């Protein structure tokens, strides 16, 4: 029977959903074109629900693999990406994809490295930080704040980021593997072969073998051997190749919740791309900045555009919040390439991608409330420091790589852009550095505990 606290949680969960419904109707009442913003909002809610339910965090993919030898999230994100890559190829074939590859170069590796350090310190990646805020996590709130303002300051101060973009990053080639091998729009079969199979699924299988052999195999084979020994007459057992295949499959399906979340996230991300492209056709816009200009609203870039990826993205809309606040306070943020030339600084309530981030936070909050997992967690001074530094590092890394774990990795790889793997490898290197530090730090703290543990 539900007690008072359960009723309160249900009340808050459905109040949040009701409030978002009212906000959605308000947007529609202002102008039907704002259904574009509302669509971002509700896809954000869907991501938030699934991220929280599946504990889906890209930081934990590398970090738990390195720190504690757990492969569940590493496997989960790869499954999500494999599913998404197939959907992306189909959407591209029918001109229903909003995806565009990013400039290919070492900046993706370097950005990933810096981002990887930040995500381990902050306790979550860019999307993980948002869903953890929905769980009431104070450290993630600090990380988000420093990511918001850190990025805005980083892209404007000194003008060096403009130089980096203009002279180095923008001139780099940008292509999908199918375009590189077969030219533009080569047909569904070739896109499935190049973008989905060669660029996404085969590298994933290679990484699964790596994760199995290097990390998971020892524990799994031990369990299989124990099971066999229990049923063997003389207690002697030998493991065979079929046991290895069983173990490999066990690694992939070990956490059903993560695997199911991965499949669903892949499907939702595909539907998101489809919905945004259809809305662009419906309203006759290539970018939401065109709609804002037509309505006489401010904040569009010199090109008449605002940040409007048309798919799942996290960090640029956060940078825009920081840029918008600082701009209002008198710091000219529109005189740089990042905001002034391409992404603009619309008011937050007219910023389409930002509503997606808002949706992620509240979607995760609803799921956490329904699952009795919402709890406000005030950060200690130690965690506040890690959150602060983690947010700064993640923000810098995301700007250098032109995206985070979602925009520079998940979306890019699944869309057929090989550069996404550079970001992923960079994230792994950064995670390795930060995990070593965390290992040293936690050992130091455990030693400081005044307890008598009899060490074996």
């Amino acid at each position, binding site marked *: 029977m539900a007690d008072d606290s359960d009723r309160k949680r249900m009340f808050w969960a459905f109040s949040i959903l009701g409030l978002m419904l009212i906000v959605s109707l308000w947007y529609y009442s202002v102008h039907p074109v704002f259904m574009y913003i509302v669509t971002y909002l509700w896809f954000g809610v869907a991501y938030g629900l699934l991220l929280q339910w599946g504990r889906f965090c890209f930081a934990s993919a590398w970090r738990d693999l390195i720190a*504690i030898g757990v492969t569940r999230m590493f496997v989960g994100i790869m499954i999500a990406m494999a599913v998404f890559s197939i959907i992306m190829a189909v959407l591209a074939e029918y001109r229903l994809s909003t995806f565009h590859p990013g400039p290919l170069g070492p900046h993706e590796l370097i950005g990933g490295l810096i981002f990887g350090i930040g995500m381990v310190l902050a306790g979550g990646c860019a999307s993980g930080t948002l869903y953890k805020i929905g769980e009431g996590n104070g450290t993630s709130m600090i990380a988000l704040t420093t990511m918001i303002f850190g990025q805005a300051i980083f892209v404007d101060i000194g003008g060096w980021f403009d130089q980096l973009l203009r002279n180095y990053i923008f001139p780099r080639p940008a292509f999908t593997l199918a375009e590189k091998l077969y030219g533009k729009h080569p047909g569904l079969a070739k896109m499935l072969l190049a973008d989905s199979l060669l660029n996404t699924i085969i590298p994933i299988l290679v990484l699964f073998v790596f994760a199995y052999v290097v990390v998971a195999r020892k524990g799994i084979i031990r369990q299989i051997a124990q099971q066999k020994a229990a049923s063997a007459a003389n207690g002697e057992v030998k493991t065979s190749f079929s046991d290895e295949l069983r173990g490999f499959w066990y690694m992939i399906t070990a956490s059903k919740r993560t695997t199911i979340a991965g499949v669903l996230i892949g499907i939702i991300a595909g539907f998101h791309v489809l919905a945004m492209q259809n809305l662009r056709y419906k309203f006759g816009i290539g970018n939401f900045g065109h709609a804002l200009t037509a309505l006489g609203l401010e904040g569009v870039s010199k090109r008449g555009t605002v940040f409007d990826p048309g798919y799942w993205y996290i960090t640029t809309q956060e940078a825009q919040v920081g840029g918008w606040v600082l701009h209002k306070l008198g710091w000219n943020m529109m005189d740089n390439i990042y905001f002034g030339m391409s992404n603009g600084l619309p008011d937050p309530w007219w910023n389409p991608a930002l509503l997606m981030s808002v949706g992620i936070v509240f979607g995760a909050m609803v799921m956490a409330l329904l699952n009795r997992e919402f709890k406000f967690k005030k950060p200690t001074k130690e965690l506040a420091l890690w959150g602060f530094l983690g947010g700064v590092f993640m923000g810098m890394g995301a700007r250098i790589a032109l995206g985070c774990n979602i925009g520079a990795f998940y979306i890019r790889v699944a869309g057929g852009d090989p550069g996404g793997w550079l970001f992923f490898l960079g994230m792994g290197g950064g995670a390795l550095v930060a995990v070593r530090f965390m290992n040293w730090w936690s050992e130091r703290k455990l030693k400081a505990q005044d307890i008598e543990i009899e060490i074996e």
Partner: protein
Amino acid sequence: MKVKKLEDGVYQLDVKGYVCPHPQLYTMKTLEKIKSGDILEVVFDNPSSEESITALCNKEGHEIVEKRSDGGTFVYRIKKA
């Protein structure tokens, strides 16, 4: 973060308020320090650590003998293999 001895062979690790990776990292390190058959009670409130700690125990062969959760706080009692 606090580690205390509740009784002979039973320890408690309290990592409430800690986010990833701390709860799973401290769990792993504390399990490394206690004896086979000892019990470690881990108290945490970071939901994503739930899956990671379970996966860690499965991998190492430790048995989670009890799982409780209330109001966002989780208590796992783990018997070291």
